[in-house]
């Protein structure tokens, strides 16, 4: 092993040990009580909740997929991916998210399935929602495992192969999620969120300087790939696709189980509203340097295509960083990846044990925590197997998962505002959303039926018509349940 490889690995091992140490400290503060393990007794203050949300939101998509697509698509990527998100996602959190948080506080929900079973007076709806969330989240988690494998193999120049890199990161996440539950993920996310934001900004400035200054870095792109300076002419950035993606992320954010569950952890409403303001700032801080790295990378690393575009930041790290710095930079990339996989793993394992096992079999709180821990192992093993197959580019996989989440929005979240939405409307809306999206993906529905939008748009419009129609045609939910919810909400917006 070369001296450089030892330095890189030593730095990364040190970092992973630090993360495990935080996880172990959280474990000592965590009991086997259901609410303590699953939602940290709803005790997160603004700093931990901010990093828990931001770090969980910024997955391998931010560190790997987004710069990779910027490398190919250029300037349009920033507005396309983030433009409307900065406005609409906090709005969704301030309105729908606030109602989710209040219901969690009042009724003790720890999962989306519990909330929707309760709100719609249903027995199996929550389980169906859970199955769909698993279906969309597993490929989304796989992005992290892919990103970790890519980062390790690129930065160590093949010394740590792809399969081993993925395995090391999933094993680390397994250990600290198993130990510390929600508190462990929240505290490690605070460390990891700070690390990767510092990494991104530091590395962006470092690369800019190494390329001869920001002007010189951009001049390389102007010279070699001038088409990347505008978004005109790209079909991906036409008005209909632009609108489709503008709505896609905000519609799905609250239906990502790890985000939903993070919302439940806010200690108070004051904490919640502070985080709603800080959240878009964190997203902005994470994506500005990621964009510039992908953009400048296009000028100095020619010829990447297909899945190789995901390698752009690791390649920059490998090309420009001395061994010690490369080790720190790799730790930064891994921080972003782990801080998402952990939240997703805990969310999935919790919803499996609560909404599927516990919903059909009486178990004690301790047994529920044990089941959650077993589910953590099963979920991570499945994700690892999928990562070894590597089914597509990071961004391509993410866009598919986002559409699936978005089609849960209308049947589920509308019920938090409109009392008429009932169990039947929710069921039919959910089933049609799933069937419609798969029908487009499998080409069972012709592409022209999407009218130039992303396929989820026509499915969502037809879903809206179905949900509204059925809400009027079928009987409403039990009056007492509606009173429970809408008296709770009558003072807010």
């Amino acid at each position: 092993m070369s001296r450089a490889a030892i330095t890189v690995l030593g730095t990364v091992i040190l970092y992973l040990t630090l993360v495990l140490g935080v996880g172990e400290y959280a474990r000592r503060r965590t009991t086997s009580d259901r609410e303590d393990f699953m939602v940290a007794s709803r005790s997160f203050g603004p700093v931990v909740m901010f990093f828990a949300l931001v770090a969980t939101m910024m997955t391998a998509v931010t560190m790997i997929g987004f710069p990779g697509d910027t490398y190919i698509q250029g300037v349009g990527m920033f507005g396309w991916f983030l433009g409307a998100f900065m406005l609409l996602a906090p709005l969704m959190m301030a309105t729908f998210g606030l109602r989710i948080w209040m219901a969690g506080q009042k009724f003790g929900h720890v999962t989306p399935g519990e909330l929707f079973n309760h709100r719609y007076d249903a027995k199996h709806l929550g389980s169906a929602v859970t199955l769909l969330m698993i279906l969309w989240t597993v490929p989304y988690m796989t992005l992290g495992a892919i990103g970790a494998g890519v980062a390790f193999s690129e930065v160590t120049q093949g010394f740590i192969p792809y399969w081993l890199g993925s395995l090391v990161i999933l094993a680390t996440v397994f250990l600290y999620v198993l130990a510390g539950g929600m508190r462990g993920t929240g505290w490690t996310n605070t460390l990891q969120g700070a690390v990767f934001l510092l990494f991104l900004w530091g590395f962006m400035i470092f690369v800019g300087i190494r390329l001869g200054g920001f002007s010189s870095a951009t001049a390389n792109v102007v010279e070699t790939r001038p088409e990347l300076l505008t978004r005109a002419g790209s079909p991906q950035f036409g008005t209909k696709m632009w609108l489709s993606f503008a709505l896609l992320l905000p519609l799905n954010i609250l239906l990502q189980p790890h985000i939903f569950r993070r919302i439940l952890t806010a200690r108070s409403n004051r904490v919640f509203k502070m985080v709603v303001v800080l959240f878009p700032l964190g997203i902005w801080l994470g994506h500005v340097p990621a964009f510039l790295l992908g953009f400048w990378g296009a000028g100095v690393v020619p010829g990447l295509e297909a899945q190789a575009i995901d390698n752009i930041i690791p390649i920059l790290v490998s090309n420009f960083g001395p061994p010690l710095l490369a080790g720190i930079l790799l730790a930064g990339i891994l921080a972003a990846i782990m801080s998402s996989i952990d939240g997703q793993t805990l969310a999935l394992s919790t919803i499996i044990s609560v909404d599927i096992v516990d919903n059909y079999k009486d178990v004690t709180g301790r047994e529920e925590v044990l089941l959650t821990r077993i589910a953590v192992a099963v979920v991570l093993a499945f994700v690892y197997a999928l990562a070894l197959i590597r089914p597509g580019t990071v961004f391509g996989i993410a866009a598919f998962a986002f559409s699936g989440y978005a089609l849960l929005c209308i049947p589920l979240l509308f019920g938090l505002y409109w009392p008429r939405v009932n169990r039947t409307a929710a069921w039919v809306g959910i089933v049609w959303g799933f069937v419609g999206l798969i029908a487009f993906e499998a080409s069972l529905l012709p592409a022209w039926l999407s009218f130039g939008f992303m396929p989820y748009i026509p499915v969502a419009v037809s879903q809206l018509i179905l949900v509204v129609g059925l809400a009027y045609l079928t009987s409403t939910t039990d009056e007492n349940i509606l009173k429970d919810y809408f008296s709770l909400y009558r003072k807010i917006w």
Partner: protein
Amino acid sequence: MREKDSHTKGVSRKSFWVPTLDKRGGLLLLAAFLYVFHHSELLGIHQSDVLLFNWLPVGFAYHSGLGLVYIGFILVLYYNWPDAAVNERIDEIREPAEKKQAAPEVIEDDAPEDSATDGGSDTGVSEEVTRR
């Protein structure tokens, strides 16, 4: 009775998403207005390859700057957050009714729907916490 019906059947007029002529309606209108700027093709910026300060592509500068404006709007939301929701943790604010009457934070403009005859209190969050 009409208020009770609207309470459990229709969308409340106090919902953020219902257009009204009051301050909340103004916030919704402002959000819609700001969203339009996301479509930079309306301003022709999508075709521009100008570099600001000789290194910053104008398309990126526009959208990252607009993102900061959006954060400013969310800050406006923060300062207009509904008073009833500012209280500390819900299950910690179940106070005796007489104490609540003296509390100054109960907002006046909520009065009509607050009086809904649903058995709830005037804060809307004073019922016993119902654990499932």
